[in-house]
């Protein structure tokens, strides 16, 4: 009796340590999958080719990766919860919050929050346009269709999926 008690405790501690490590690992994975690409691909900063490659690779895998990691994190946190002290619980909650945030952000395109896309482009007849004669436009003619895209608008939206003269084109600026 006197020897089995400490060994049970030791075993519990070992299991708890193992789960803590697993929790930290999956938390790190989820957070890294979102934050590394977000950090590398940010405006007004130099993107080194290798860093960009890593960022794209992570971002590509982030939606599924963060989901799996987040689910695992929640499971491990649940297992740790009963025996955890108060301050450990608050660390668990805080970490879970950042993990959940990463999993959500991995699914959202925040670049489109800064520069909204044009959902359904509308067009005006040339004579109805209020553009100034001096305004710069990008012009394309395919078949019988001629279209103009004001640069002031495209410099904000950046990308437009359009069909001109039956040809699907991407207008980019």
């Amino acid at each position, binding site marked *: 009796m006197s020897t089995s008690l400490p060994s049970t405790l030791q075993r519990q501690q070992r299991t708890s340590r193992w789960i803590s490590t697993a929790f930290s690992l999956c938390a790190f994975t989820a957070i890294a999958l979102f934050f590394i690409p977000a950090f590398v691909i940010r405006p007004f900063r130099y993107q080194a080719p290798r860093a960009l490659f890593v960022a794209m690779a992570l971002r590509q895998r982030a939606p599924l990766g963060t989901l799996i990691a987040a689910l695992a994190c929640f499971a491990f946190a649940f297992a740790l919860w009963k025996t955890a002290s108060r301050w450990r619980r608050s660390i668990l909650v805080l970490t879970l919050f950042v993990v959940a945030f990463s999993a959500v952000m991995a699914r959202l395109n925040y670049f489109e929050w800064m520069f909204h896309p044009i959902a359904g482009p509308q067009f005006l007849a040339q004579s109805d346009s209020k553009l100034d004669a001096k305004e710069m436009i990008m012009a394309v003619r395919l078949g019988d269709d*001629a279209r103009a895209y*004001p640069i002031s608008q495209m410099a904000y939206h950046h990308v437009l999926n359009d069909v001109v003269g039956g040809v699907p084109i991407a207008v980019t600026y």
Partner: protein
Amino acid sequence: MWTRTIKGRELHFYLAGINNQNFLMRDKETGTWWQQITGKAIYGPLRGAALELVLSDELTFGEWRSESSSGQVLAPVAKYTKEYDSNWEPDVAKLPVVISFPGTELKSRDVVIGLTIDGAARAYPWEVFAKQSPVLDRVSRTPLLLVLGPDGKSFRVFLARIDGREAEFFLQDDSKSDAPAGGKNWSLLDTTTASQWNFQGCATSGPAQGKCLARIPALKDYWFDWRNYHPDTTVYRR
């Protein structure tokens, strides 16, 4: 501008990030990453694929309107009109750059016209071009004609050949007279057939009347961006 069909499959692009101030887009269908300036797939399932360039123009609205009466104009989206910056060119020019090429002939934010012929890239500093237009040049043995429009802002690049014969072009003197906003008096004269040519590259009178010069795709860009994607580019010197 690019076509967005790869191997018969139509793609839809969205803004996905930035690579040294040239934006990255991804397609909804495969998630592949594409570089805007090159139209090339740089990461993902379609990596290595390249979009086909669509010939387009950078013109003033006035010039475009004078050339075609039936065109359509992208309508502003009411929600975002506050975000549109009709003063974008000087505003963007003030922004910092993250890559630069010290020791090269131009400054990072110098505007150039960039073109590539048979793999050889050349940049024409806008200021030199605008002063000198029409510019006659040769890249990879291809004779080129670069022309500033009658509005002083639009530009086009043509193959300087009429019926396969190389030709030289000069701005006609009457262009200096009181040309109306549409630039009706504006014309080029070629030395091979002595025909008059308009800014669309078509002969309006003379022996070549009705003929049009072939267009060469060219891009108005900042030097740092052009140089970054065309490390072997040469720079036009007058």
